């Protein structure tokens, strides 16, 4: 199956069939998650209603980090197996991951002002998230500045792999340094320490964000494949000269 869908035409057929269903499911799950989290879930005993930003902020931060992991994986596959669609996947994931990271930084800032009294602090988690956002920017800039898609893909793959070292640093930054940011409460030894009345809508929002990513990346990959097709057609036309 991995090799079967390496053929762009087959991938276009599969993604075209999947996309409406995935988008529809995204809308439904996102609506359920948002309503449950922002309206139904109980307010925190300490933070009051502002805790509801968590339902937007935490999954966004997770997705921002996970997308870079996705890019690193796709880069590795592109370099090692030379899978034709791997660099398309990586290129398409970058703006989505950058948007998630930016959303996490913004909502975190909005949450930080009432909670900590500051729009921004230079603690380990925030700094490494900001560095992640800068890595996305650099990654997208490299794609932009190299003209030829295959060459750009390989260069971006190298950069993607080199930057992947930042991911474990982000995940463990709140544990390694004494920081203002809340330490891990879900993926830690001893199991999650969130009550289910908040944990379940949070899990639904995680699922919704993964679905958002899925539908966006399918659409973006389709667009990139079509973009390359147009480019090839233009080049062929230019080479064909005046007898086309």
């Amino acid at each position, binding site marked *: 199956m991995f090799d079967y869908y390496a053929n762009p035409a087959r991938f276009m057929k599969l993604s075209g069939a999947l996309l409406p269903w995935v988008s529809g499911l995204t809308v439904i799950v996102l609506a359920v998650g948002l309503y449950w989290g922002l309206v139904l879930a109980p307010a925190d005993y300490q933070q009051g209603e502002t805790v509801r930003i968590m339902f937007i902020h935490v999954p966004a931060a997770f997705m921002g980090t996970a997308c870079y992991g996705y890019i690193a994986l796709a880069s590795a596959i592109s*370099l090692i197996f030379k899978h034709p669609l791997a660099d398309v996947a990586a290129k398409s994931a970058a703006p989505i991951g950058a948007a998630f990271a930016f959303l996490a930084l913004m909502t975190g800032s909005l949450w930080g002002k009432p909670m900590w009294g500051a729009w921004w602090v230079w603690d380990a988690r925030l*700094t490494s998230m900001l*560095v992640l956002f*800068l*890595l996305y*920017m*650099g990654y997208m*800039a*490299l794609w932009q*500045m*190299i003209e030829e898609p295959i*060459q750009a893909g*390989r*260069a971006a793959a*190298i*950069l993607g*792999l*080199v*930057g992947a070292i*930042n991911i474990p*640093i982000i995940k463990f930054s709140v544990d390694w340094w004494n920081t203002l940011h809340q330490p891990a409460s879900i993926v830690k030894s001893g199991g999650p320490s969130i009550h289910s009345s908040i944990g379940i809508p949070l899990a639904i929002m995680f699922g919704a964000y993964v679905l958002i990513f899925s539908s966006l990346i399918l659409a973006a990959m389709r667009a990139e494949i079509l973009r390359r097709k147009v480019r090839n057609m233009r080049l062929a036309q230019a080479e064909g000269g005046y007898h086309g």
Partner: protein
Amino acid sequence: MNPFFALLMRDIRLAVRQGGGGGMAVGFFLIVVSILPLGVGPDLNLLARIAPGLLWVALLLSVLLSLDRMFHADYEDGTLDLLATGPLPLTLVVIAKMLAHWITTGLPLVIAAPVLGVLLNLDTQAFLPLMLTMLVGTPALNFLGAIGAALTLGVRRGGLLISLLVLPLYVPVLIFGVGAVDAVLVGPSPFGSPFLILLAITLVSAVISPVAAAAAIRLNLD
């Protein structure tokens, strides 16, 4: 003479005779350190407190601006093509170039740093730790920067792109470098912890960068 040392000596000789490399980097270092107090104000106590950070940031910027001297000249006149097909594996070629670049550009910066620290009222007990951290940190800056330089070989007017690619990778070096110096000046925490992590970063980048940079060069030579 074996090819690695031949290449190393060639690059050092070129950098020294053509001039500009080490001298301009130190000049830029001096200029940045000079304009910083004009920006933050001449209060000596403030300057003394932020001197390690300012010196490290100025060092970062100086190394950044000198990065395109590593490969671009050889790329443009075709020498890199010859080196890539020569007897020395491309990874070793890259190591030789990075080493030559560090000797001609990084070392002068390290030596200049305490002198410039005087301009920023750096506490004298921090001079040796500063030089030590920079001695250990500048190779990391060069190695990581080589990746950026190699990736942007084919890009025209890619100066800002190198900065954008490489500065996020520099952040850990900066954090631990300044952390080590501050540990001597201020903190109860020992100098050893951030210093050893800085050393670890340099060693890891010494292994990863030649591989990544060689791959990037091979990519750009096709």
